[in-house]
């Protein structure tokens, strides 16, 4: 194996890892805020990809310019899901452990069914976008333009998320609600509003990832399942609720996945990633950046 091949593999692993990181960031945000795992996270991604597909076909606007529209759409979905489903699931007194898992799990299955009903199980893809079929070469390493653009958008989104959660008044309210949602009610913060915003932002984040992913990945009702599993692994690895953790773990997972393809058949590449997850479970059940 030459150094060039290795550089190529490392770069493509990091590019994929950025997408993984952003998908996981939304999941981690919601989890950190209210200790609820969104089992429909992959289906949020899938919804964003189909939204991009429909808007691209009907309006013929390039996916890059669809970013704000899809993000707002997913934000609305996140808020509605919180207000209609999650609030009810959290107020249930009997079997609450089961309810918290199955409420979003059921939502995921429902969304997958809707997608299959409307769009059929066939794979779809976006053709002829601004980014399609172009590659960039830097120091002899080839990078497909869609993946490169996706990574850059993810970096920007991460910076935005970080600024939002650490530098704004809203971010402080978010942090306070995460610390003690009962206490913030006493100082006039509406925790349901904050939780709904958290769901909205988490969904919008995965919406951005979905738009960029749809420029180079096929779209199908089940596409979210694989990415959601990787997102859970990223979040488990980086620590539930930790944004920097999601970034580092996402990149690490992308890298591991790319490197395992050098050793074992590509159809087994996820086994390496999932194996790494199990290893982390053994060593650090709360992840690398997770606080106990």
């Amino acid at each position, binding site marked *: 194996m030459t150094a060039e091949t290795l550089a190529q593999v490392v770069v493509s692993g990091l590019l994929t890892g950025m997408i993984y990181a952003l998908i996981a960031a939304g999941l981690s945000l919601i989890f950190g805020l209210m200790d609820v795992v969104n089992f429909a996270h992959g289906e949020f991604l899938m919804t964003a990809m189909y939204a991009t597909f429909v808007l691209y076909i009907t309006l013929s606007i390039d996916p890059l310019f669809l970013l704000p529209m899809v993000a707002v759409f997913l934000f609305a979905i996140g808020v509605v899901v919180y207000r209609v489903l999650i609030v009810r699931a959290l107020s249930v007194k009997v079997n609450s452990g089961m309810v918290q898992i199955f*409420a979003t799990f059921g939502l995921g299955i429902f969304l997958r069914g809707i997608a299959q009903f409307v769009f059929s199980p066939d794979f779809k893809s976006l053709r002829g976008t601004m980014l399609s079929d172009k590659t960039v070469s830097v120091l002899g390493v080839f990078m497909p333009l869609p993946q490169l653009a996706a990574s850059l958008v993810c970096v920007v989104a991460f910076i935005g998320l970080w600024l939002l959660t650490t530098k704004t008044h809203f971010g402080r309210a978010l942090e306070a609600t995460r610390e003690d949602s009962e206490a913030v009610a006493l100082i006039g913060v509406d925790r349901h509003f904050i939780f709904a915003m958290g769901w909205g932002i988490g969904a919008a984040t995965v919406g951005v990832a979905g738009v960029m992913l749809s420029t180079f990945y096929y779209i199908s009702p089940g596409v979210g399942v694989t990415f959601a599993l990787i997102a859970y692994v990223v979040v488990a690895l980086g620590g539930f609720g930790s944004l920097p953790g999601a970034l580092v773990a996402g990149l690490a997972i992308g890298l591991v996945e790319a490197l395992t393809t050098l050793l074992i058949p590509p*159809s087994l590449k996820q086994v390496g990633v999932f194996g790494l997850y199990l290893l982390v479970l053994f060593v650090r059940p709360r992840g690398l950046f997770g606080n106990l």
Partner: protein
Amino acid sequence: MATFSMPASLPAGLDLGERRRRRQALSGLVVLAILLVLPLGIGDVYVRNILILTLMYTALSQAWNILGGYCGQISLGHALYFGIGAYVSTLLFTKFGVPPMLGMVAAGFVAALIALVVSWPCFRLSGHYYAIATIVIAEIVYLLFLNWDWVGGALGINVPFRGESWVSFQFRTAKLPYYYAFLGLAAVLWLASYWIENSKWGFYWRAVKDNPIAAQSLGVRLFRSKMVAAAASAFFTGIGGSFYAQFVAYIDPDSMMNAQLSILICLPAVLGGIGTLWGPAVGAAVLIPLTEVTRSYIGGSGSGTDLILYGVLIMAVATLKPEGLTGLFRIDGRIKPAAAPATGPSGSTHAA
């Protein structure tokens, strides 16, 4: 008035548990008697097939209920044990000539063993952490089987026909023996659940589910209790898998281990009432015929209507009726045991 009725109702309340057990045993016998004669009156192949599937998912969900319901550890990867069961009995049959009747016992034990190995790291996790781990592990094994040539890879294995008999558990013309086999499995699991509800393990598991820390302080060994539940649950799920392999006579990772199957295994229990005696059976009796009928009226399984149906049912039950459908009829009465005015010997009804 209220103070006087207290001591009088206390022994009646204790008595209630015993009476409820007797009523449940009686209802079990009645349902079994009906199910024994039911297929004799139904010749239609399509309807018989639905009955067989309903009994199978009843059995599988009862097995899942041991771990997920009574012990409260929500596994979303039970297709793993089902698939292992199917593969063990089939491989023993095709590669070593072991008759499936013996093979299915081995299938149960291998599935239980794998459950113990898998659960070792997983039981350090709780709640949704545990649920995610079960999905990931099932996915790993699915991917490995998909790429493992010795077990047929993605192409799968055809189970060769060696003549109709109970030893090889193969019946080509009539599907009735499979009906009775699955009925037997469901009945055994019903009895097991009936026994669990009043046994030491049943009390341990429910304590682990409701309040692990309190349970531990009272001397329940958490880890060991969960491991026993996992092994028992996987044992029966594995046997169910080997039954199904003989029933369809063809296995591959997609039909025996996919994630959809994991959903179908836990869904009847969730729907009917998680951690209840009749929950899985009621859930399967509603869900499976409903799925099959929608499928044949609205279109093939590719149309997604079955997924929409599952999704809506799960969300509705989880948020509106978390104790499950049996809670509607109070079949089990475990959640509100006091609501039984008719059982009082005399005149106690107008106290309410």
